[in-house]
């Protein structure tokens, strides 16, 4: 229970008195509902304090911090290769994508450029982690709306992507594969052929999900027009990634501000949707999985030969300076701001993760919706708790 000040009490009484003059008969008392920190719909420990009038939300406030791990501070006492392990755990469903902007920022400070083959493979894993992340979203959306079956399909097909990641990196969830100046290993034999088959499977999965959801009346009724974010509000709250693109903002860092990855050399499309509702967010992510699988296919075909590691000193000391690199991660824009004083460890590391901004819109978005819509909206905003609380 939070302490209520006298001033708040007086305001409440005044508001009630004003209401009762208008509506003596129908006066009801509201209810405060704590959704979380332990709740099946919050993917972890996000707490939403919702003030309800019946089933309608009067106000809602997200409270993060139940899983704060102090990553930024921890990074200050770790060397750069060690930090790589740590930041794997930020967005734990698309771990490799967390490493990429950090490594790129460190490379930028050190003035190293990874060899072309390493850049291509990096881009491939970047997109594969997007696939493994968003596939789970596509299935999870069904669970949040009460249909458990798509989640099982999602887990089934995500497994193939994870297996491919594991064959190269040794880690299913946390590859820890990216290095300053290149990659840890090259691809094993026969991997590319298998990956193309897996990408075919991923596209089949997308078709399956599209069949299950797109023409389903109940799904449309539950998502269309629910949680509409206009483009200007999305920009004000700093939404990024698919959430912004679903509001019609044609902004994708992979295309508009490429930073060391090979996306400009690939043939792909940025999908946007004009509606800005939960359905649009689902639809945009579905298309993104398709685009990502096509990108992986193209990289498999066009992979250049050569070394996978540039010449890097054995002990990595990053020269003094500051660097900011952000990339288009599965959840949205993710960036690292490194301040180095020339030591083994960064002096300060600021992490910008997408989910924190994406969730910050909830007080605005949840006002006036019904309780089931809270779940739809939270699911469609798609956040990972590790990405909110670093």
């Amino acid at each position, binding site marked *: 229970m939070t302490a209520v000040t006298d001033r708040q009490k007086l305001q409440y009484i005044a508001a009630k008195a004003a209401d009762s003059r208008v509506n003596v008969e129908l006066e009801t008392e509201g*209810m405060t509902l704590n959704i979380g920190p332990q709740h099946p719909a919050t993917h972890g420990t996000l707490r939403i304090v919702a003030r309800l009038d019946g089933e309608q939300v009067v106000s809602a406030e997200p409270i993060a911090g139940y899983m704060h791990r102090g990553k930024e501070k921890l990074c200050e006492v770790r060397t750069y290769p060690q930090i790589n392990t740590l930041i794997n755990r930020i967005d734990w469903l698309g771990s490799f994508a967390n490493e990429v902007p950090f490594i790129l920022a460190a490379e930028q400070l050190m003035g190293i450029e990874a060899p072309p083959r390493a850049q291509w493979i990096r881009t491939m894993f970047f997109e594969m982690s997007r696939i493994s992340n968003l596939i789970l979203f596509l299935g999870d959306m069904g669970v949040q709306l009460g249909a458990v079956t798509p989640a099982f399909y999602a887990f089934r097909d995500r497994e193939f992507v994870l297996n491919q990641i594991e064959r190269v990196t040794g880690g299913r969830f946390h590859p820890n594969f990216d290095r300053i100046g290149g990659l840890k290993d090259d691809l094993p034999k026969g991997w590319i052929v298998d990956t193309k088959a897996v990408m075919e499977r991923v596209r089949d999965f997308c078709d399956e999900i599209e069949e299950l959801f797109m023409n389903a009346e109940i799904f449309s009724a539950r998502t269309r027009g629910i949680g509409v974010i206009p483009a200007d509000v999305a920009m004000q709250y700093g939404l990024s990634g698919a959430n912004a693109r679903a509001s019609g903002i044609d902004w994708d860092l992979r295309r508009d501000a490429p930073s060391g990855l090979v996306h400009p050399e690939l043939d792909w499309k940025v999908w946007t949707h004009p509606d800005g509702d939960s359905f649009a967010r689902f639809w945009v992510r579905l298309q993104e999985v398709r685009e990502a699988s096509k990108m992986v296919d193209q990289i498999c075909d066009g992979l250049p030969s050569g070394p996978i590691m540039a010449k890097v000193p054995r002990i990595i000391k990053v020269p003094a300076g500051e660097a900011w690199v952000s990339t288009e991660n599965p959840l949205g824009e993710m960036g690292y701001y490194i301040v180095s004083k020339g030591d083994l460890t960064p002096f300060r590391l600021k992490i910008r993760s997408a989910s924190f901004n994406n969730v910050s819109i909830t007080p605005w978005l949840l006002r006036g919706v019904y*309780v089931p819509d809270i779940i739809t909206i939270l699911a469609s905003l798609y956040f990972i708790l590790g990405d909110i609380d670093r």
Partner: protein
Amino acid sequence: MTPTLMFGLELAYWQETIIKVLLGLVALLLLTGGVVYLYLFKFVSFMQSRLGPMEAGPYGSLQLLAEVGKWLQKEDIATEKADRFVFRLAPAIVLASTFVLFAVIPAGPTAVVSDLGTGIYFVLAMSSLSVLGILMAGWASANKYALLGALRAAGQLIAYELPLVLAVVGVVIAAGSLNLQDIVAAQASGEIFGWDGIGNPFILTQIVGFTIFMIAVQAELTQSPFDMPIAESELVAGYQVEYSGIRFLIYFIAEFATAVAFAAIASTLFLGGWALPTAWGLGDGVMHVVGPIVISAKAVLLVGVVFWVRFTLPRFREDQLQTLAWKFLIPISLANIVATGVLKVVF
């Protein structure tokens, strides 16, 4: 009461009733367990491309026993602020309202605990008792999720009670009786334009009523897409959220026993019940044995439909559910009654 002959013994009315109730309970629990294994464990697993339980017994067939054993061992917790008496009474009421339904469902020429003249009326009245238990559970749990779930359940069960009743009215008009045995007999001895090869199951003439009945049953059972009272992704487990151990088990049994009960009622009303067509010329002696098998098979098939829908569709929102009931199902079922009445007079 005149003594009746049963298993070659002369039994008093009370003896006969006790035997029927015990047999009915055994049959009910077996059927419910079978349905849970067949559909909740296996059928759904295959729909979701997984195996389901495989370890306990051949193909996991003893999994349910393991689950029941687990629930019986667990501590029976009532929360500190709960209204203990009401909290403990609630599951019993829900279960009782289910078991009472089976008392009037006929499974053979004499295999019915109580052959009420107003059988279907009794069924519909008793089935709505469960909402009382759910409201009690929601209120006594002293939990906001439970309260929300219970209120949703109350709103939903009342809204869907109406189409359920109105869908049955069509059958009652067609059969000319409220008695379930008469309804079965009317279907067995009926004929389709003079042909009596399969009798005249009311699903043929009352297909609209059957559809509405099954939709309403889906809502009465609070199965997806009408599972807002439980809604695990929203309300965690709705009114069941504070229950554990044997009391949760009772809710579990009640849920699936009600599914079996409503499927049995639907097959009695629309699919001809226990009877095989009169034209096949099977005597009462055969039907004593075949009747229970026939109605069990039909009921299990219909439960399959309920589960099929449950694991296919996402959940409605509360207001969308009310819209569906009041704006679509009730007007359609009223039109169905009018049409049935007119056709009954014409033919």
